[in-house]
């Protein structure tokens, strides 16, 4: 495209969404823009700070009661008196401003599993959330990014926020995953390859002929962990898998954006799914990835299967496939946390909960719980856990001298049975 002598480079998918929400024909990387928001999210840890700021600033109303959502998931059901006070503060605020999408114990789920399931995010949306894993909704072809409580406050009040337009890294997906390799292995492989700051300030854009072989739940898992590579957002091209997923969930208008053929990328990688092996991220960074040919015997104390990364129904099916008619190892605690009430119900109908309980697992109501060391499975000094969660930082799941190993539901379940870090082929 040539206008008045200037050559305008094409735009990435993210840039097109941001341009549309800023009322501009085009934007380029580095440009500062003010964008309209389709959804502003907070949880029981980040919302109280935003509410305090909202009140201090003297705001008297929110911009749209249907476009602000709060999910009580981190320390809920209330883990202690202080956590109870934080949830109450959110509940009172949502009551006062008549916020439609307030999700409390009983109908809540982990926010990033819940919002897509409820149809609250559509392709082409511009979403901010006071939780770093808000990048999950990029799976649906939305621009979605984590921000802090002050930005949440301003977003709730004004329905707008400023962004610096990001550049992008393109991931061209080809092939199909082998049996017992999972989307989690793909994203861990990518983070291992580019590092925890490999996509700092940038978009990770996923497209290619192999995309059709990744289910929506696979994509949600991968977009979820874009932040673990430092990315501003992860985003997937919209295709038949996307449209099939949203057709009975999203009942409003939305717009599909595609990257221009001449969009500029700072780097491009081809990811052949058929080469992806079960992968484990060792303490204390998600980039410390190893495949099983590099893993010696690691004795474990706990397994957690759940979280916004891997607590969806397909994840529980994978875990149940491994745990069926088996029992977890002595001295291992295995905690299974369906991410939402709907996932919980579906797992019950399919007999998965029975498989877990027969295998010796504890099954919990939805919560972020142990993923961030909140409750429901905290580690003692020196203990090790294999978890399907997203971070293995120092002290993430409990004592600063405990260890978290990140893996897929297949590997987590196999490890629970083995009592050591194991892949399905080790125990089948």
């Amino acid at each position, binding site marked *: 495209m040539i206008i008045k002598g200037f050559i305008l480079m094409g735009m990435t998918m993210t840039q097109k969404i941001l341009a549309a929400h800023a009322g501009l024909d085009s934007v380029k990387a580095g440009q500062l823009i003010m964008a309209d928001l389709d959804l502003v999210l907070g949880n029981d*840890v*980040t919302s*109280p*700070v935003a509410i*305090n*700021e909202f009140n*201090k*600033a*003297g705001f008297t109303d929110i911009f749209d009661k249907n476009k602000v959502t709060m999910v009580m998931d*981190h*320390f809920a059901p209330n*883990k*202690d008196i*202080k*956590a109870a006070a*934080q949830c109450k503060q959110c509940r009172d605020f949502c009551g006062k401003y008549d916020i439609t999408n307030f999700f409390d114990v009983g109908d809540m789920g982990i926010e990033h599993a819940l919002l897509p399931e409820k149809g609250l995010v559509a392709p082409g949306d511009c979403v901010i*959330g*006071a*939780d*770093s894993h*808000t990048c999950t909704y990029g799976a649906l072809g939305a621009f979605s990014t*984590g*921000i*802090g*409580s*002050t*930005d949440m*406050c*301003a977003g709730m009040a004004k329905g707008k926020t400023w962004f610096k337009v990001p550049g992008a890294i393109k991931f061209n997906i080809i092939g199909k995953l082998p049996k017992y390799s999972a989307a989690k292995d793909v994203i861990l492989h990518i983070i291992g390859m580019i590092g*925890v*700051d490999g996509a*700092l*300030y940038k978009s990770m854009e996923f497209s290619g002929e192999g995309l059709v072989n990744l289910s929506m739940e696979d994509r949600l898992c991968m977009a979820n962990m874009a*932040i673990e590579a*430092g990315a*501003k957002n992860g985003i997937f091209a919209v295709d038949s898998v996307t449209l099939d997923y949203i057709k009975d969930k999203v009942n409003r208008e939305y717009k599909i954006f595609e990257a221009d053929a001449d969009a500029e990328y700072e780097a491009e990688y081809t990811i052949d799914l058929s080469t992806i092996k079960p992968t484990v991220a060792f303490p204390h*960074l998600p980039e410390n990835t190893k495949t099983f040919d590099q893993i010696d015997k690691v004795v474990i104390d706990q397994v957690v299967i759940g979280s916004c990364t891997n607590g969806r129904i397909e994840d529980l099916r994978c875990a149940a496939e491994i745990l069926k008619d088996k029992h977890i190892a002595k001295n291992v605690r295995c905690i299974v946390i369906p991410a939402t009430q709907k996932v919980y119900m579906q797992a019950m109908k399919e007999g998965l909960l029975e498989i877990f309980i027969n295998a010796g697992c504890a099954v919990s109501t939805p919560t972020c719980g142990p993923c*961030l*060391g*909140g409750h429901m499975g*905290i580690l003692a000094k020196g203990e090790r856990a294999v978890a399907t969660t997203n*971070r293995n*930082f*120092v*002290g*993430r799941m*409990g004592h*600063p001298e405990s260890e978290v190993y990140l893996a897929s539901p297949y590997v987590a379940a196999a490890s629970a049975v083995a009592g050591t870090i194991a892949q399905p082929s080790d125990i089948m």
Partner: protein
Amino acid sequence: MKARGKVHKYGDNVDTDVIIPARYLNTADMQELAKHCMEDIDIDFAKNVKQGDIMVGEANFGCGSSREHAPAAIKASGISCVIAKTFARIFYRNAINIGLPIIECEEAAEKIEAGDDVEIDFETGVITDHTKGETYQGQSFPEFLINIINSNGLLNSLK
């Protein structure tokens, strides 16, 4: 506008879970959180830090969670500025929004050592290590950022 103090030095990828562990996030009282700031990697930080001190990290400082409690706990502990090679983007935004000055400078982050007496001039971006007698050029703060920091945060600056 300047900051000057003694340096607390850390390495790459200082994440928000070590800046303020989630087990303390059942409160939004930042003075309370400051008592636990950095404790998982530097158990004596809260005891040793003095008003005006400076924190220096290396690459990807503040990675991980979006918790604004992280820069807020650093600020409430008395730290007057954080210098790093690079910052994780949510932390960067949060720090500015709550009025905690942060500055990217690769050379300063590499050379400055724990205990050094360091001064930062935000208008010029010049970082002076008085202990070593060296200066480094960091990015200067544009006027709107100076205004946010002088106003003690974004929301105050909008009033």
